[in-house]
């Protein structure tokens, strides 16, 4: 297991290097002035432009530019905002809120999605099953910001069940509940469909027949023997989907005015603060890569057939 983690970490290095190079290329090597839009709507003052070129080594050849860029990243230097505040400091203050939101959304989508998937899977072909199959497709089709806007109106403004927007700098569990449900809603539909498909397949398997022949209760045959196997692809999906969750967090935080990383990114885009945008997204991509590593490790724990030697 230990060597496996190390090997996976080593394998991640080229991917991280490649991803940062890609981001670097998009930021600095696309046609156009890298300074464009870095200073809001106005053109940059010459002094700032010179400092910017110096800071991002734009006068060097491309490979050296990239080398220095990665060097800065490795030291935790993700650049500065137009106001001269370090991006990393901004992120440090905000990531706990986003982490809380993302974890709540994950818990919501996993618990509800798996439950729905199990109930439709064991009653395959029934009315509930068909209803869920179609309604999940409808939910998948509604973009997060539409779900967000509509639920904010109906559940927040109309019914008053949830706070409409988050007002505090350190939002409570209750304040984040509706945003988390919105954020988890689309993956929820995917998870319930995937759980259903996977459970239906496993219910036909020989080892579930064995579980019945062992005289186990139906609840145990399904809930433990079949479900344990059905969850393997679901866990993989949740990790794979984490990138979508991060994207959705930007939208959700923008709608509900949550002062997390996503809300910060949203305001940076609006303010055309390029350095903040790039720094924030780079961090999010690296987080995504680590989450995928974690999911791979978890996958090995769930499925002993995957060798980690």
């Amino acid at each position: 297991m230990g060597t496996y983690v190390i090997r996976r970490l080593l394998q991640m290095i080229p991917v991280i290097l490649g991803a940062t190079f890609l981001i670097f290329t998009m930021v600095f090597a696309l046609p156009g002035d890298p300074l464009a839009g870095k200073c809001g709507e106005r053109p940059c003052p010459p002094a700032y432009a010179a400092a910017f070129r110096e800071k991002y080594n734009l006068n060097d050849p491309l490979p050296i530019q990239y080398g220095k860029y990665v060097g800065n990243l490795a030291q935790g230097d993700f650049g500065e905002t137009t106001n001269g505040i370090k991006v990393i400091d901004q992120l440090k203050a905000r990531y706990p809120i986003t982490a809380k939101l993302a974890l709540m959304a994950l818990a919501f989508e996993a618990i509800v999605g798996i439950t729905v998937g199990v109930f439709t899977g064991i009653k395959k072909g029934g009315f509930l099953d068909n209803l869920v199959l179609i309604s999940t497709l409808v939910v998948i089709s509604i973009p997060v910001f539409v779900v967000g806007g509509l639920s904010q109106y109906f559940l927040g403004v109309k019914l008053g069940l949830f706070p409409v927007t988050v007002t505090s700098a350190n939002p409570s569990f209750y304040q984040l509940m509706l945003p988390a449900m919105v954020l988890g809603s689309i993956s929820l539909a995917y998870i319930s469909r995937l759980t259903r498909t996977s459970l239906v397949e496993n219910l036909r398997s020989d080892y579930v027949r064995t579980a019945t022949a062992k005289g186990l209760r139906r609840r145990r045959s399904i809930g433990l023997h079949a479900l344990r196997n059905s969850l393997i692809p679901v866990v993989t999906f949740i990790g794979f989907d984490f990138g979508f969750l991060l994207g959705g967090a930007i939208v959700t935080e923008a709608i509900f005015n949550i002062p997390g990383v996503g809300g910060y990114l949203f305001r940076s885009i609006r303010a055309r603060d390029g350095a903040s945008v790039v720094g924030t997204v780079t961090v999010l991509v690296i987080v995504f890569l680590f989450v995928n590593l974690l999911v791979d490790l978890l996958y090995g724990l769930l499925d002993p057939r995957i060798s980690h030697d």
Partner: protein
Amino acid sequence: MTTTQDTTTPKEKTSGVTYTPEDGLLLEVEDLYVEFHTPDGIATAINGVSFDLHQGESLAILGESGSGKSVTAQAIMGILDMPPAVIPGGHIRYCGQDLLSMPEDQRRRTRGPEVSMIFQDALSSLNPVFPVGWQIAEMFRMHRGVNKSDALQQAIRLMERVQIPAARDRVKAYPHQFSGGMRQRIMIAMAIALDPAVLIADEPTTALDVTVQAQIMALLEELQQERQMGLILITHDLGVVADVADRIAVMYAGRFVEKADVVELYSAPAHPYTRGLLESIPRLDQKGQTLAAIGGLPPNLMRIPPGCPFNPRCRRAEDVCRRDRPELREVVPGRLAACHFAEEVINA
């Protein structure tokens, strides 16, 4: 836990229900029918099958794939998928009590402690994500309420009993880490864990190498004699049954076509189908001769031909065979066969 048991005293069960065999009679299957209701029509998989099973007896049910032998086993075990399977008629009595009319929870409690089953493909029949010891121990935990560590100790003893080397070290290993023969031993350990009175083995050696096949059959025979279980051995392989079985029932298109003691059946089959099966076994003393395979295919279970279901493949078939279905009848004392010309076949 004792490894041997007194065959006359009833076993104690946590469920409170006790099952006592009368005169050693464990299982009575009477005029059993099983149908599969599919979108294409109704397939009759079992068409009026009857047999008894006594303590310490081993019965082999022999047939080609699709003959209904596995369905019979699954019907006794109560693990058919219903739907699509339907049991429109018949009785399966265990120690005098009809399993088919029993409340599901009571029937469930018989699976494992009373009637137990091992399957053909141990790799797919064992759960891939749980350690083998855990899967054996689950029997003690769920049926007897034994705590986890005691159940695991009992699982280790069982693994030793079925001759798994270094059982104590391998109790936490997963099914895929064992060889095919070892996996089948684990299946057997799990099936005999609660000292069942009836053990059903559905093609237990088909997926294994020939040398391993012999070892597994020897183990099954040993365990059966040690515990005086009633053993139902489902197989398509005449060679496998010869040493282990006492009686053989030959199945064709959902019916028994012949029932006999194993020695008598081998020396003089009373049904052309059985004869065909025996002739299709390669024999060392007939080297150089052509193997006599049975021509044709078993009938489609949705369209079983009128008359004798075997008539399209039978070399002896005459008009009566195409018209009247022969009943299973006593040909000579102790020998049953369903053939209009059974007397001629047995003396041929």
